[in-house]
């Protein structure tokens, strides 16, 4: 099973990810822990929102605003990085945490490597589904690369200039 980092600890990833379907309203959603595409969730939210084992994933060009009304009910939101150099997911994560006040698990998925984890964490991700060829042990170190930061972030609500002694 691929590994997952959650709140600084290594686990096996128990979730199944469904790919985007042509007809989102007809996509079969199996039992168990399933992460469904945003479109599927939106099309089937009446039936899915009663389940506690459903997560939703957003692609980098999708709008987190679409989740706004139900966001607090979700057990897991994942944001896809189609390529590690596609930086839209960082803004999406901040919006989910800061604009929509989501408190649950926020996961980076897709092309998730080591050297981006620190920034991802700062933008609100607390969960990382690493690309399968990456070592989770080494990745942990990537979460603490910098011992100080200038900007406010989800991990540090005050910018350095409000904390400088």
């Amino acid at each position, binding site marked *: 099973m691929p590994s997952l980092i959650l709140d600084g600890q290594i686990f096996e990833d128990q979730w199944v990810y469904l790919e985007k379907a042509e007809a989102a309203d007809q996509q079969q959603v199996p039992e168990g822990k399933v992460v469904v595409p945003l479109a599927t969730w939106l099309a089937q939210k009446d039936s899915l929102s009663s389940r506690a084992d459903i997560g939703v994933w957003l692609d980098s060009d999708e709008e987190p605003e679409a989740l706004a009304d139900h966001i607090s009910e979700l057990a897991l939101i994942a944001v896809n990085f189609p390529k*590690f150099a596609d930086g*839209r997911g960082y803004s999406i994560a901040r919006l989910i945490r800061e604009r929509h006040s989501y408190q649950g698990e926020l996961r980076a998925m897709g092309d998730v490597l080591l050297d981006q984890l620190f*920034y991802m964490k700062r933008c609100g991700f607390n969960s990382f589904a690493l690309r399968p060829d990456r070592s989770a042990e080494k990745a942990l170190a990537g979460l603490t*690369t910098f011992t100080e930061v*200038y*900007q406010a972030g989800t991990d540090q609500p005050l910018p350095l200039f409000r904390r400088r002694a």
Partner: protein
Amino acid sequence: MYKYDDYDHRIIRDRVNQFQDQTNRYFAGELSEEEFLPLRLQNGLYVQRLAPMLRICIPYGMLSSTQLRRLAKVTRDYDKGYAHFTTRQNLQLNWPTVEDAPKILAELAEVEMHAVQTSGNCIRNTTTDQYAGVTQEELVDPRPYCEIIRQWSTFHPEFAFLPRKFKIAVNSCPDTDRAAIHVHDIGLQIITDESGKLGYKVLVGGGLGRTPMIGSVIREFLPEHDLLTYLEAILRVYNRYGRRDNKYKARIKILVKAMTPEGFAEKVEAEWEHLKDGPTKLTDVEIARIKSHFVDPDYQALDNQPSELATPLAENKYFSNWYHRNVVPHKKPGYAIVNLTLKKLGVPPGNVTDSQIEQLANLADEYSFGELRVTHEQNVVLGDVEQSRLFELWEKIKPLGFATPNLGTLTDIICCPGGDYCSLANAKSIPVAEALQAKFDDLDYVYDLGELDLNISGCMNACGHHHVGNIGVLGVDKKGEEWYQISVGGASGQDASIGQILGPSFAREQMPDVIEKILQVYVDKRNGEELFIDTFRRIGLTPFKERVYA
């Protein structure tokens, strides 16, 4: 100048360690070429045609003599003994090895320098007026605001993987713009509102490159304390909606055009509503803290035009030429701003040797409170020279090659490294500059032409800012051969404009003669002392076209 405290040192040291680890993993095969690429770029390391190139950041152009000496050492120890000042107030080493790059960065970190975000799709070095803090023309010193932006943009977690590179420039002079804010992704003009409150006019979407564009004003007045939250709103809109499918359409200017400036401004304002009263809003304490790093040095009470200056000015024509061309008025009586030109015949524009860098450090110590500035025009500036010592300084810099009195004239050419160094080039640019400098070596003729910018880029990326040169030269590739396209009528500054293409391109040997013809048209048509750009605006492109292609 800004002095690092423990926090700043810690952040830059962590960065050096991080990059050392990344470089190790790259050589161990744990990072692919593609994965290492943005990491090394964001540490200033390009791989160029002949060797890697390290672009060292000079925040808003300021250097101390201590930093200069370290740059000289690094240039000597890790390179072939010379470096290149770029048009973006950075310094490039052309021959370091990838293995050495982390070591170079460690040496630079000791003197509060780095190469952070000098390359890659992130927020780059913020630039400003080379005369900031010493010119009489400015409203306030813009450097504290540049430093505030530097700290905010350094390792900003949300904006490290933008669609494309992102450049911010700040200007504080109401009537002139040496920072070229109209051709930056974001241009900030520091202004006051009717009540005298300080703030910024915000321009977005200017740029050179393949699709040159003049920036649009998206906010007439942004209050001083709202700087960072507003930048954050702009960057977030760009990060989310800027194009990522085509790198030639990925700059913010394309997004602003597609959404229209009004539409873009609306999006930004809506985003900003959520951010403006958040913790990133600047505080009085922080603004005062940063400003305290930019207080005036210990100026003496002096008079203008002391006899030590007036006498040689009257007696020595060469000195007087240099003085009128290369020396600029200072805000304090008895002081002057001095441009040291790095455009000597036979030397590629902007190139300096390690010993020249050390000489510059000595000059800064002896004449200018140990500080020096680098300019977009690839020259350097001593900001605080006593007028009574100008003659002495001039005599000293003549043999060093820093006193060519051509500032702002035809032969003060802005030129990118081009095909001699850069793997993206279509054509060489330095030999063109050299041929033009050789052709127009008659200084009286050059003076008579007056202010005239000639800018050369080796390809569409426009590092030589050819679009905004009064005469612009662009290297193009025609079936594998190097050709040059000429544009006329570009201008930087408050009335910036993009040059118009003259017509079909030329071979390198033809260039000096073609430029001469363009100049002849100007000389024939000029009214009195009219500047080249004004003549062009009056008569248009046609007369130039007719003469050149006759």
